[in-house]
């Protein structure tokens, strides 16, 4: 098959279609900046999707849990080896992505006879040395995109809808406001993923109804990298106290 370039291109295209198809049903992850750092939010029926990688780096992914786990372990390994051999301040996202997880995912994608990583990854760094590149999203083919204020992983339609919803998001928002807008963006993204082609974008009321229904069976999982905490590790999973005001506004007991 690989002797013929045309077949190879076809195989790659099939792979892309397969990945997009498999990931379409995933609940997207939304990430934004807020006053004290970075917020990551998603919903899950059970297994965790948002994790700590290093002192100021967080990881979230959609896809197959076993693939997510492999990639998470790979990033944690690289970060800790760097942190040990050099110093904590040498562990940064730009290098982790361009020299670590990016090539790893691309390598698996290129091996036509093996399964690629069925996952899309979002990484966030608190106050990166490079300035504005707070977020990286890594697609299942290993390509990655940088973003400064907001980012998301999900199906193509979900990500586009989330970006549209959060276009005017203020990085100086309080945690509660950021949670509210991330949750709203998540609902828009989720609805866009389920929408048939040609259907119109939902109105504000439909989003509220959708969110209310969705929250009855799903748990909201959110974490922050909070620069105001005194410990070296800035990662914190948000508990009920943090989420309650936002969730109760949407009718979740």
């Amino acid at each position, binding site marked *: 098959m690989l002797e013929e370039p045309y077949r190879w291109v076809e195989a790659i295209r099939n792979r892309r279609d397969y990945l997009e198809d498999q990931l379409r049903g995933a609940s997207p992850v939304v990430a934004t900046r807020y006053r004290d750092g970075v917020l990551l939010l998603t919903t899950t029926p059970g297994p*965790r999707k948002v*994790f*700590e*990688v*290093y002192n100021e780096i967080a990881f979230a992914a959609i896809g197959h849990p076993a693939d997510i786990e492999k990639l998470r*372990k790979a990033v*944690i*390994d690289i970060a*800790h*080896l760097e*942190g*040990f*051999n050099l110093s904590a301040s040498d562990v940064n996202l730009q290098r982790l992505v361009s020299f670590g997880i990016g090539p790893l995912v691309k390598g698996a994608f290129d091996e036509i006879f093996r399964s690629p990583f069925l996952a899309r990854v979002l990484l966030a760094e608190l106050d990166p040395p490079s300035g504005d590149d707070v977020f990286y999203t890594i697609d299942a083919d290993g390509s990655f995109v940088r973003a400064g204020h907001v980012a998301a992983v999900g199906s193509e339609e979900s990500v586009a809808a989330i970006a549209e919803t959060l276009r005017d998001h203020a990085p100086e928002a309080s945690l509660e406001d950021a949670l509210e807008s991330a949750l709203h963006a998540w609902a828009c993204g989720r609805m866009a993923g389920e929408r048939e082609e040609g259907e119109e974008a939902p109105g504000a009321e439909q989003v509220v109804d959708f969110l209310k229904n969705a929250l009855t069976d799903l748990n909201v999982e959110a974490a922050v990298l909070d620069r105001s905490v005194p*410990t070296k*590790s800035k990662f914190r999973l948000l508990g009920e106290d943090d989420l309650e005001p936002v969730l109760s506004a949407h009718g979740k007991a």
Partner: protein
Amino acid sequence: MESCDFLDLLREGGHMPESAGVAPAEHSFEGTEGTTILAVRYRDGVLVAGDRRATMGNLVVYDRADKVLSIDDDSVMAISGSPAIAYEIARMLEMSVQYYRRSQLQKLSLDGKLRTLSRLLRQNLPMAMQGVGAVIPIYAAFDERDAMGKIFFYDLLGATFESVDFCTTGSGSSIIRGALYYLNRWGGAPLAEMDEAAALELVMKMLETAAEYDTATGGYRENAHIFPTVMRVDASGIHSIGEDELEAIFQGRIA
């Protein structure tokens, strides 16, 4: 299941510092050494304190060495012996604990931490046997299960022992060990019943006592603004006692 051990990760990648294979030195080697550290249990937890002096034979190498190092949110390690090896061991231990928590999504237990430190010391044994880089740590942690501060110490081979009331190591330790025993037994009330202020005063007086009779232990020097390192380990985690607080105690109750 893949290994969750940071030391394995270092070994696989060839990042583990070489320790074995040190040839017997033709000339006796005098390395840098740290001196007096002590840990005392009081009512709410443990205080761990160390002087700041590092010596090489009869020379003072450094008067601002930190020998009490935080490992994670609820434990500290204090070191006497070779600082080069001790800092490396502390770093490996700190990274092991972090790595475990992040990769396994749960905290490493106190027993797990003690065991890791023991393995690190064991790994250093070939060098220690050559008379280079021996390290004797004290490890203090707040045990959430028993809701009390605990003190552990090690020998060169990595054996772990738990101290009930207090523990001292380093060249000045023999000078204050007897004093601590006396106070604990006949000093009115057991050390474990002291409040924090009393415990703080006690550890600082003990370090001054060690500095008086042991030249390798550095004392309080007002003109150079040098204070011992003191860390508190209690239910709220670890906390480093600030220089201002130490200075007030020295000037008010000790000097």
